[in-house]
C-alpha cells in the first residue's frame, strides 16, 4: 500500500495503513491573521498505524491511539510552517529512521494510556520542519514494535517543498 501526498511517500507493509492530510481553518480565521500581516499555516500531517485510523483524530493521534492493541503502533509525522526552520527546537538534523526502544517512555505521550509508551522528536528534513511522534501499543513489547516502526520509517521519503 503506497501513501503519497504533500511531499510524503511511503510503501507500507501489511497491516499498516496511512493517510496524509492538511488542516482546515475557517475563512474568518485566515482573514483575521491576514489583517495583522500573517498567514495561517496548515502544513500536512502523515498518519501511519497498524490499527484502524478513525476519521476524526487529532494531529498527534488522539482517537487513533485509543484503538491500538498491544501489537499495534501509531506514527505521526507532523509538519510545521517554514517560519520554524532554523529554530533550536527543529535544528536537530534529519528525521531519524532508526529509533532506540529505550527512548520510549510511558510518560512520553500526549495522553497517557495504560500500557502504551511514546517517543517524540523535532527535526528538519529537506527544508521541512517536522515532528516525529510514535506511540507503541504496549511498552513491554517495545523492542519488537520499534523494529516494525523502523522498517516503516526506512521506507519513508520526504521530498523537499
Amino acid at each position, binding site marked *: 500500500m503506497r501513501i503519497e501526498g504533500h511531499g510524503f511517500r511511503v510503501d507500507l507493509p501489511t497491516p499498516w495503513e496511512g493517510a496524509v492530510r492538511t488542516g482546515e481553518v475557517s475563512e474568518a480565521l485566515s482573514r483575521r491573521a491576514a489583517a495583522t500581516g500573517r498567514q495561517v499555516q496548515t502544513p500536512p500531517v502523515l498518519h501511519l498505524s497498524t490499527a484502524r485510523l478513525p476519521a476524526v483524530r487529532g494531529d498527534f493521534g488522539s482517537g487513533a491511539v485509543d484503538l491500538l492493541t498491544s501489537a499495534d503502533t501509531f506514527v505521526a509525522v507532523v509538519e510545521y510552517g517554514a517560519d520554524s526552520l532554523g529554530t533550536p527546537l527543529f535544528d536537530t538534523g534529519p528525521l531519524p529512521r532508526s529509533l532506540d526502544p529505550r527512548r520510549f517512555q510511558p510518560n512520553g505521550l500526549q495522553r*497517557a494510556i495504560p500500557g502504551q509508551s511514546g517517543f517524540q522528536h523535532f527535526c528538519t528534513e529537506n527544508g521541512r520542519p517536522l515532528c516525529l511522534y510514535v506511540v507503541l501499543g504496549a511498552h513491554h513489547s517495545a523492542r519488537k514494535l520499534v523494529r516494525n516502526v523502523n522498517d516503516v520509517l526506512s521506507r519513508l521519503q520526504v521530498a523537499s517543498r
Partner: protein
Amino acid sequence: MTHSTSFAQRAATRAGQLLTLAPDRGRRSFLRRAALVGTALAVNPFDFILRPQSAYASVCGPANECSQGWTAFCCTINGGANTCPDGSYVAGWWKVSSSAFCRGEDRYVIDCNREPDATCSCRCATGECDRRRVCCNNFRYGQCNQQVRGTTEVVCRIVICTPPWEWDDSCTTTVRTDERTRDHSASCLNGTNPTEIEVVYQDLGLVGSALGAPTSSEIDTADGGSWRTYDSGTISRSTTFGVAVLVGPAGLTYARLGGPDGVLGHVTGDPVDVAEGQVLPTQNGALYTTPLGDAHALTGPIDAEYSRRGGPAGWLGFPVTGMLDAPGGRQRVDFMAGWSLAHDPSTGEVRLLPDDVELADRPGVWPATAGVARWDGPTRVQTAVRVSTESLPDGATTAVLAASETFADALAGGVLAATRRAPVLLTSNGGLPAETAAELQRLGVSTVVLIGGPSAIPETVEAQVRDAVPDAQVSRLAGADRFATAAAVSAAITGPDEGAPTVYLVNGRAFPDALSASQAAGRGGAPLLLTETDLLPEATREELVRLAPQDVVVVGGTIAVSDAVAEEVRELTGAAVRRLLGPSRYDTAAAVVEEERPDGADAVLVATGEAFADAMTAGAASATVGAPLLLTATGSLPAVTRRAIEQLQPGLVVIVGGTAAVTDAVAQQLAAVPVEDHQPRG
C-alpha cells in the same frame, strides 16, 4: 439563566479568595494584549444551545480523571488563574473548531510545559471535577517558544478564544487540530455559551490577569451593552464599539463614574499612549491615565477644549483632577502645567485660567485679562524692524544699529537708544538688510549710531547705511573690546564731561542679567557698564571713575559679578553699591520692573529670556512706549512673570518675537493672566 452564569459566579467567588495569589503582570504588556482581545472579540452574536449532559460532564468534559491520561487545566492548579504557573512556559497549542465555549469561534488549548531548568513532579489535580494529570505527559506541540530545545512535561493547559499568535508573540501560525478534545474543560473555566466579557476575561487569565477577581456581576446597559467590574479594572462591551478592557486607575475610575451608564458613556477606541501616559476615548469624553499612575475623566466642552489645545501632548500636560464643581455653577479641571480649564454652562464658554485663581460666585463673570498682541517678524532683524515700526510710528531722529549675532555691544546700544527715544535696529556683518535700510528711511533719522567696531559691523555696512540715509549723520561707538565699547556708549549717553548719579554694572559675558539691566538703565538714563566676573576691566574702571556715580547697581548674583568686584567698585567710586537679582533671569527682570513701576502699567512688553536679540530691541521700545519689559521662557510663562503682570494690571501685553521665541502656549497663558484683584483658590 444558563449554566455559564453560575459557573462564572462560582469562579468569581473563588477568585476573590485567591486574589493574593494572582501574579503581578506588567501593565503595558497586559494592555497591549487586552487591546488585541478587545478588537478580536468586538461583536459576535453567535449563540448556542446547551446540549444535555450529566452535571460533571457538562462542567469538566470527558476523561477528567487522572487515570484517563489527559493533562489538567491550569486554573485548576494555579489558584484559578488561566495562566502558565511559575516554572512553566507556553510550548504549543491546538485548535478545536467552532466551539460553544468560545461563542462559536475556534477554541485554543495552550500547553504550559515545564521550563527546562525547573522541577515538578507528576501528580493528579484535585479540582472539583478536573482531576487530570499535572506535570506527567512528556510531550510538546511545539509552535511556541521554539528557541527552547527539546520536550518537557506538560504542567497544565490554558484555554483561550484568541488565536495564540495574537495572544503570545512567540507562537507561530501553524495550526494543529484535535477535535476530540472539544468538550474538555474545568469548573474554573467558562462554561458553554459565555458572554463576550466572560470570554475576554478568561483569555486575559481570569484571576491571574491584571484585572484580578470580579467584584460585580455583569451589568446590562440600556443600549444593549454590558460591563463588569474587577478588583483592578473594568471590562465593558458595546454593541457599537466592541469590548474594552480598562486596567488599573483608568478602569477603577471608569467603574466609579458608572461605567458605560455613567457620564463617560462607552469606550469608543483603543487606548493611545501619549507622553508617558495614556488616553482612552469614550463617547462623552476621555479617560486620562497620567505618568504618575492616576486617572481622570474629562467630559463635554472642557474635554473638547483640552483636545483642541493639544491634550496631554500639549502644553497643559495631563489633568491632575477630574471634573470639579466651581463657583457660579461652573466646572473646572486642573492640569499639570498649573493652569485650569473652566466651563460656564450659562454661556457655553470654556476659559483658561491659573489653577490658583478662584472663580466668582456669579455665572458669566470671569477674571479680567489683558489683550495680547505680538510684534514679530520672520527673523530677529525683521522683528527689530517691527518693534521699531510699532513703537515709533511717527519716526525718530536717531537710530541705533547693532550687530544681530553678538549681544555685548548691542546691550549697551540699547541703553543709548532708550535715552534718545531711538529704536535698536539690527544688521548682519555680511551686509545691511534691506528691511533695516527701509526702516531707517521710514523713520527719517538724522543720526545713525553704529555700536561696535568693524568686526561687529564692517565698514561696508557703514557705507550701506550712508547710502540708505544719505542725509543722516552716521557715527560709530566702539572700543577695543566689549568693555571699552560699553564705556564709549556710556560717554555718549552722559556726554564726555558729565558724570552720572547712577550706573548699572553687569557681567559682559552673559546676556540674561544684562537684558534686565539695560532696560532699567535705559529708562533711567543711566549708563550700563560691563565687567568680568572676578576682574573689573580697565576700560570699565576708567569710565566708573569718570562718571563718579553715587549709586552703582550690580545686576545679577555673585556668579555673574563677584563680591570682590563689587567691593572694588565701591572703593573706586565711593558709591553705594547694591545688587539687583533674583533666582532666575525672569525674577531679575520682574524685580527691575517692580522697583520701577510700583503703580502698574497700561501695557507690558514680554520677550524671551532665552535669547538676547528680541529682548534687546524690546528694551529700547520699552523706554519709548513706557511699557515695562518682562521676560519669559520660550515654552511656558514663569510664575514670577505671571505674578508681575498680575500686579502691573496692564490692559495690553505685547509679545516681542515670533513663536520660535515665545510660543503660542505662552501667548495663551498671557491672555489668561488675571489683571484685576481676584480671590486666590483655596
